[in-house]
């Protein structure tokens, strides 16, 4: 009932832990059963170890949080040697989120990681780095070029993660599809800013950061809906999903699977609650599977 498929990869349920909110799984494994997830998208990795941005990196605003972590991670070698073996013990699909500061780095990362995981998620949307990330992801030509090159060398399906910080996200979705992406995931965080009126300073050291949480959900649902009209590859939807009702909205808008992020910080049991909620909803409304919900909005 809950099983979904993305380019031949079967997820036992459509809930994926969103990259950047779940570490490498190890941290949450002390608290919840990682087997509950259909998939886990790991903390974004780069070729070399990355220290990330200076403090403060986090602030809270109405309905969400702004972060500027800046891709802090131990680098691909540590990921492969120290983190992957642990994650592989669980019955969940592993999605490696990869980040290059130029095209060559994306290619190199895909070569190293793709034979070892179920899928890779090419992050063309991180708002918190100066080069690469969103800077590439805003330009359909760059999205096309990088996706095509990564696809050539990848041994597993390729998901391209898109940024919402553009005029028309469907242009990026179409570029990724044309270049051979197996799926797209959207949305990454929305560029945002908050100011402390007493000190008159920004609440984030980098001045701007990425907004996540319930505040961005309606934007994300709209973007999933728009992309669903324009591409034929599966869409993984995310952005402010806090409960099963939010998840159902994403399926109706056109998402085949969903990622949950900020909610993991608030309620580590969210995965199990959302799973049960989706199942109950399907039964109550006479649907046989999640697949029946995908894009099943009545306009």
């Amino acid at each position, binding site marked *: 009932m809950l099983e979904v498929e993305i380019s031949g990869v079967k997820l036992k349920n459509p809930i994926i832990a969103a990259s*950047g*909110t*779940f*570490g490498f799984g190890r*941290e*949450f494994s*002390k*608290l919840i059963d990682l087997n509950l997830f259909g998939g886990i998208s790991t*903390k974004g990795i780069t070729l070399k170890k990355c*220290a*990330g941005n200076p*403090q*403060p*990196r*986090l*602030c*809270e*605003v*109405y*309905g*969400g*949080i702004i*972060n500027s*972590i800046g891709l*802090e991670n131990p680098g691909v070698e540590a990921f492969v040697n120290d983190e992957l073996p642990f994650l592989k013990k669980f019955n969940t699909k592993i999605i490696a989120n990869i980040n290059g500061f130029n095209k060559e780095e994306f290619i190199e990362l895909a070569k190293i990681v793709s034979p070892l995981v179920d899928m890779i998620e090419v992050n063309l949307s991180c708002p918190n780095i100066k080069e690469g990330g969103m800077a590439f992801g805003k330009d359909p030509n760059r999205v096309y070029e990088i996706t095509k090159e990564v696809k050539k060398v990848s041994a597993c399906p390729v998901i391209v993660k898109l940024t919402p910080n553009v005029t028309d996200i469907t242009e990026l979705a179409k570029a990724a599809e044309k270049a051979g992406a197996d799926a797209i995931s959207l949305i990454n965080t929305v560029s945002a800013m908050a100011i402390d009126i007493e000190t008159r300073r920004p609440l984030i050291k980098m001045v701007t950061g990425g907004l996540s*949480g*319930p*505040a961005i959900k309606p934007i994300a649902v709209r973007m999933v809906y728009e992309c669903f009209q324009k591409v034929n590859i599966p869409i993984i939807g995310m952005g402010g999903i806090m409960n099963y009702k939010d998840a159902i909205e994403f399926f109706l808008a056109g998402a085949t699977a969903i990622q949950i992020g*900020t909610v*993991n*910080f*608030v*309620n*580590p*049991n969210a995965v199990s609650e959302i799973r049960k909620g989706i199942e109950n909803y399907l039964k109550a409304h006479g649907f046989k599977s999640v697949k029946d919900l995908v894009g099943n909005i009545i306009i």
Partner: protein
Amino acid sequence: MKLLDVEIAENKMIANGIYLLSFESDYLANTFKPGNFVNILVEKDSIYPLLRRPFSISFVKENKVFIGYKVVGKGTQILSQKKKGDSINVLGPLGNSFLIDKFNGKVAVVGGGVGIFPLLSLCHELKKAGNKIDVFLGFRSRSDLFFVEEFKELSDNLFISTDDGSIGYKGNTVEVFKTKIEEGNYKVAFSCGPKPMLRFLKSLNLPFKCYVSLEEKMACGIGACLCCSIKGKDGNMLHVCSDGPVFDIMEVEI
């Protein structure tokens, strides 16, 4: 660590804007070590505040857990209005703990403001281990004082200072500590307080080990979100929630 729904036993103001909250939890009371903290979800299904809030555990008494906090924003403001019987969700115990040992000589404990909270159980355990303890506590003003009697009982010498001089020494508690270093002949120091205070403490280049409990904004409290990263001495990134909150003061950038 566990996620626990607990019922508030008491939540009272003990000084100017400073509260002490307690709840019963056999699990937390049995697993707690001085320095540990908890991540509290103040209100379920709330979108502002959205995140959990980290608080150090001040002390435990039988199966009762005591958390001290100061009202500084929306989350703590809502928490301060909670009454006996209200439910909150607690994730803990989190983080590492202070080193408890029988030190061959005197121990100095230096606390400022709400940083004083985690030091009470520390002093209790240090005393139990057979140590002599000098305690230095800094407050803004006389109306901000709390736990003075408790620390008096646990310490061999207690030095109080206030920013405005309304009680005790006038000025910074580290300043007072500095004047006592030589005669104190300390073997180790423990501290928790605001960053400027800890920076001052670090600048003293103490001739003995000094362990500090740090604070940073955090989302998950378990090392996954990487919001609370700080730089270690060798440039390595450390996380206040999972590598700390207690660090050797010389091993971290403050």
